[in-house]
């Protein structure tokens, strides 16, 4: 990657369908290192689809367009390789996996990542130390990691667990899909603090949200409004306030 000033992520004219129904109809988005983006939009506008397609969910079909991430054709890679390149998706509905403890899950994930970087696997001691450190970032109860992944977690605990996993994997580009939905104010603060602690000049976040409330805690550099599969407006963080005060219809009708 010779062009250090280039975009980390470049989405061009992305069209995506599921069962012949088009959901994304030409999305363009550029993300650079150090930036925080927010994507807002009414229900069904395609926000979650965009995040899922980038992470590699294969129920969607890309019919047109390109996605280049760190100079690589992202769409050609299976989900695990995207993750190893530093892409992370915080799920809107984190999946429960009874019988698989968070410890074993994260051990597998962290060691795969290390293998990719030609590093030896962490010893049990090193791994537990890392877990403890990262749990502290999201103020997570240590007993959670010995339980089945997300099993019996409340909505807030699940989202906290997503941020914990993000902290463990230290991605360079994280999409957080409605990580704020279903959270009370305290949980929202914890999740947002987690993101802010992990933010550096070398990584980037794309926060998908319905509400301006989250953006009080995670201040975006750029806000996009997605409607009917296209980004219809981008602007500074004031755009989120405008959405909050006047509603999506106002913006949709004005464009």
């Amino acid at each position: 990657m010779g062009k250090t000033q280039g975009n980390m992520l470049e989405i061009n004219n992305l069209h995506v369908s599921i069962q012949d129904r088009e959901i994304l109809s030409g999305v363009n988005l550029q993300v650079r290192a150090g930036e925080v983006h927010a994507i807002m939009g009414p229900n069904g506008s395609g926000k979650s689809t965009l995040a899922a397609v980038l992470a590699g969910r294969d129920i969607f079909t890309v019919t047109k367009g390109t996605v280049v991430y760190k100079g690589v054709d992202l769409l050609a890679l299976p989900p695990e390789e995207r993750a190893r390149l530093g892409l992370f998706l915080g799920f809107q509905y984190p999946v429960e996996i009874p019988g698989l403890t968070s410890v074993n899950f994260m051990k597998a994930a962290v060691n795969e990542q290390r293998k990719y970087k030609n590093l030896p696997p962490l010893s049990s001691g090193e791994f537990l130390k890392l877990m403890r450190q990262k749990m502290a970032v999201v103020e997570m109860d240590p007993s959670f990691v010995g339980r089945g992944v997300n099993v019996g977690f409340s909505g807030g605990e699940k989202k906290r667990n997503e941020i914990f996993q993000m902290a463990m994997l230290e991605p360079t580009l994280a999409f957080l899909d409605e990580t704020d939905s279903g959270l009370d104010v305290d949980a929202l603060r914890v999740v947002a603090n987690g993101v802010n602690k992990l933010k550096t000049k070398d990584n980037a976040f794309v926060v998908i949200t319905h509400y301006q409330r989250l953006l009080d805690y995670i201040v975006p550099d750029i806000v996009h409004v997605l409607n009917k599969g296209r980004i219809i407006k981008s602007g500074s963080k004031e755009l989120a306030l405008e959405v909050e005060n006047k509603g999506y219809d106002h913006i949709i009708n004005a464009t």
Partner: protein
Amino acid sequence: MKEYRYMPEVKRVFQCTVPGENIRQVFLVDGVLQESPGTQNGITLSTGPEGRGLKTHITGDHSENPLQIISVRSENLPEPLEFTNTWELAPGAKAQIVVCDHTLKEHLYQTSRYSHITLREGAHLDLLFMQNEHGRSRYWLDLDARLYKDARLDSHILSLYGGTIENKVKAHLQEPGAVCNLDGLYLADGEQEIKYNIEVRHNSKECQSSQLFKGILDNSAKAWFEGLIYVAPGAQSTEAFQANHNLLLTRDAKITTMPQLEIYADDVKCSHGATIGRLDEMGLFYIRSRGVPLEQAHLLQQMAFVHDVLEHVRNHAIRVRLEKMVESRLRGEFSKCAHCTMHCC
């Protein structure tokens, strides 16, 4: 290094170093006990008719000192073999027994093992069967257990590898307070066939039983699960549960599950449930999205599926070993235990 007991003539052909403290190993080769009958620390070993089979009588508390019965088929006897083991626990006796069945060569072995278990008042038996033979062997286990007042049986059957495996288990709860927990795990691929026939008979009031059987079937493997809970007239305050869950990895794998309840008492709590499913696509995507490759994600999901069966194995050292064996089995590594000088299968 820990020292293990071996009979010299067995040591040359077979070594099994199950980790763990205080394990006493007893070898049976083609059903013949490889040590002199006798009594040691309350455990009496003797042989059955024609010198085949093992008779065990146990007194006292041995719950922290597992007895491992290593039962191997040798090349000296390729013919079908049938023998009976009997286990009797005296009142209040406690024992942990691990039975490992292996074949030393790839003969078309056919082995029938009858096991008669008697648990007297207050006796506790923790019993584990490791069925790890080879893809052309035929294995048949017929286990019959009688539990008297306040006796408890925890049985775990792990069918890791074998051409055809049939397990028939019948537990009779004869007196109040008896508790019987039967677990099973069966992993089959290729053309392997595994049958489980489980019958728990509540012949007395105030007894409890539970069954948890899980299977993963790959390729064109087939399995059958027949499970019956019988509650006799007058067996009031019975609690009996049964669960059978199956994961099919291919379209050609087949499971037939037949849970049955026969209840002739009216104050009982009984339930049964059976499921057949596949790997969870959304779960796989979730795991992969964290950088874990597809193959490893498959394995993690399968290990997660069998987790609760293995969790019931209380002996930590043996459980850890089993987890490793199951994992290597699910990786398709033929389930060879790395601890053997000879391959077990």
